């Protein structure tokens, strides 16, 4: 390798009019937002809701969360997927925690199918003011057979539940709760990716 990676820097507090402009009401269209679906999307409709909590348990109001997931058949909308890209479901969402009064992020999506023998999961990227490098984690689902998942198996048993979103059935539909703990006793597992 001949070149060195350009260093990461924080996304800072003022990303919204660039990266999440529509959500925050700035006059600029967005490449993605909190809704990954349209009327045609196949799969079980779910909401993913959570907060990003700092080392004192306070909700972070200037975080940006991104998610990347497969479709209901476990296919990714990307040329590397050997089964062929599902162009109808892009699988990418982005949401800032600065618009909800409780500083929650919220995604409307579908539950992904299993990928290469892994339990259904979503890859999440966390960034905020005060994070110089982004952090990757995974969302698993409390009602799936996570015991067989090869990635979860590598995570210390007492930390696995930081990766598992809790299913709640509400009048508004199926909600998975997933809080991200940046620090503390319940610090979310972040992967070396």
């Amino acid at each position, binding site marked *: 390798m001949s070149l060195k990676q350009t260093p990461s820097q924080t996304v800072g507090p003022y990303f919204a009019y*660039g990266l999440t402009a529509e959500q925050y009401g700035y006059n600029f269209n967005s490449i993605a937002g909190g809704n990954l679906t349209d009327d045609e999307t196949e799969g079980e409709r779910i909401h993913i809701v959570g907060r990003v909590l700092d080392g004192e348990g306070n909700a972070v109001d200037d975080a940006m969360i991104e998610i990347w997931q497969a479709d209901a058949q476990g296919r990714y909308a990307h040329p*590397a997927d050997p089964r062929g890209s599902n162009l109808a479901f892009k699988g990418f969402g982005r949401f800032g925690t600065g618009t909800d009064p409780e500083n929650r992020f919220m995604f409307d999506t579908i539950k992904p199918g299993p990928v290469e023998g892994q339990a259904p999961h979503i890859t999440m990227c966390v960034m905020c003011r*005060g994070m110089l490098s982004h952090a990757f984690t995974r969302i698993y689902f409390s009602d799936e057979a996570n015991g067989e998942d090869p990635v979860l198996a590598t995570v210390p048993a007492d930390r696995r539940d930081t990766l598992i979103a809790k299913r709640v059935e509400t009048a508004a539909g199926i909600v998975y709760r997933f809080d991200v703990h940046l620090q503390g006793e319940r610090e979310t597992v972040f992967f070396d990716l």
Partner: protein
Amino acid sequence: MTAHGPFSPRDWVSHPAYVDPGYKSTVLRGPTKPLIPLKQTLSEMTGPVYGQESVGPLDHDMTKNARINGEPLGERIVVAGRVLDEDGKPLPNTLLEVWQANAAGRYIHRNDQHDAPLDPNFRGSGRCVTDSQGRYKFYSIKPGAYPWGNHPNGWRPNHIHFSLFGPSFITRLVTQMYFPGDPLLDLDPIYKSSPEGRRELMVSKFDLDVTEPEFALGYTFDIVLRGRNATPMTE
């Protein structure tokens, strides 16, 4: 190894540690437990694809994309460069999203309370996509420095924020581009969070060949993302 990965690891020499007490907000926000290794799967070797179709006609020109009643104030600049991987291979069709303060050092973001004027004709966000050779170019106004509360009389150097995906979700990079000769660089804990020898990779170069006569000063800024995994000598 396939054409799509796996990717080489994040270079934690270049990239800042999560907790860096010089930048105070990291103390409560940076993860503190060791990262857990993860053998890359299809979930890591894929990522969102945003090409030319995701960019509007004025998205690459922040001197034009938010005009109301005139031109934005400040020094016009052209920023051009290439997006490469660690092997020097150009990365075509890669989205860059950029955002910045205006010439007075004020962000349009509602939470920015700095007592400097907004410019009605400047928003300060845009995007562009690399061509088949990995090249990109956008137009803007040179951003001003602005104060921040991290430490007494703290000022951020002039900078433009960059966000890129690259070929997969794990090649993602968010960084900041700085300007050559800025005296604030050596005083800035965010810039200095990357070690000497690497932080300079974030400083653009003034480039007369990119400079457009009678119009705008040119700066060159190449960005290097993670490459494929190191390959054996025999390959």
